[in-house]
């Protein structure tokens, strides 16, 4: 345990005081390199009761609880939401952009799949 002289600076925070650097003496740095080894989380916010949660962005956090709190601080500062979901980005499986052609283009000429294609009885509203 090394005792170093504690010197305080006014205003600016020197790099070695920010707590964000990897210190080789610890096996498992909690803030390893400015959060670089914290997993990435995707954030979903429900803007008001009854609406769906919508994807709003992503952030870094060490665990789910921290992710919710970070999301609260980063994404709901201006009353954007009433509920937060977070999910680790690695759990999201995405379609491959290179396969967009075979996945999505075939739908382009299937106009009859739109409900507007059909004659609707007058009694049916809101389609």
């Amino acid at each position, binding site marked *: 345990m090394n005792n170093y002289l*504690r010197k305080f600076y006014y205003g*600016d*925070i020197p790099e070695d005081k920010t707590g964000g650097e990897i210190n080789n003496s610890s*096996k498992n*740095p*909690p803030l390893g390199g400015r959060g670089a080894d914290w997993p990435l989380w995707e954030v979903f916010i429900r803007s008001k009761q009854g609406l769906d949660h919508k994807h709003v962005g992503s952030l870094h956090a060490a665990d789910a609880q921290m992710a919710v709190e970070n999301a609260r*601080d980063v994404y709901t*500062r201006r009353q954007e939401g009433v509920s937060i979901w977070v999910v680790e980005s690695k759990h999201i499986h995405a379609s491959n952009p290179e396969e967009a052609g075979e996945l999505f283009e075939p739908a382009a000429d299937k106009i009859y799949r739109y409900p507007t294609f059909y004659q609707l009885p007058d009694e049916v509203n809101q389609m």
Partner: protein
Amino acid sequence: MSNLIDYTLHLADNSLILGQRNAEWCGHGPVLEQDIAITNISLDLIGQARNYYQYAAQLINQLTNKPITGATEDSLAYLRTEREFKNCLLTELPNGDWAQTILRQYFFSQYQFLFLQYLQKSKDEQLSAIAAKSLKEVTYHLRWSREWVIRLGDGTEESHFRMIKAVDELWRYTGEMFIPVTYEIEAGIDFNNLKAVWQTKVEEVFDEASLPPPPGIGGSVFMQTGGKEGLHTEHLGFILTELQYMQRAYPGCEW
């Protein structure tokens, strides 16, 4: 009346000075998300300070009968000198590292959380209303800072060591919060009870954070005092120099 003014200014100064301190992290936080978290807390505290200053200004102007030329929230924040500030010493201490900032915030938020519940029951309607409004914010500050004390205390060798250093640095400034000065006596707050509950909560959190109990907890240990009566550490002057620079250099400037 003058006790009520001093008391209100003391509450305002606590929030303003800690808010200003936390704001120094803006752009320097260990990660972007925490940078925003600490500066959000900073803004909450400055908002609380504004409420108290507005009320204090109103009281001062009633007393001096100068409703137009008298005190304003700005004159109270920007034009009082060091000896007129009544904040607790804890709030003016340097940020140190992240651990020290977190621990200072936890000690203060834990105090504020308990104190505001008393203030909410105050016979003074204005103070009671400010307390009710602030309590929601403070409940989150407490949750956030408590969580970080546990995370760092129970984290790695390095983070644990830094928390212990932070306790050494800050503990002797915590007692002042519970030693009432003249203007606090009328407020009817049971400071002994406040201190006992605060200490129990701190012990619980330290236990969960695998930190040794704070030195002399429950017993007697020397505590630094003076802030509430205008006798500050060397640090406050530097804070005010920066905080008040614009109004001192360009009196009455607006932006």
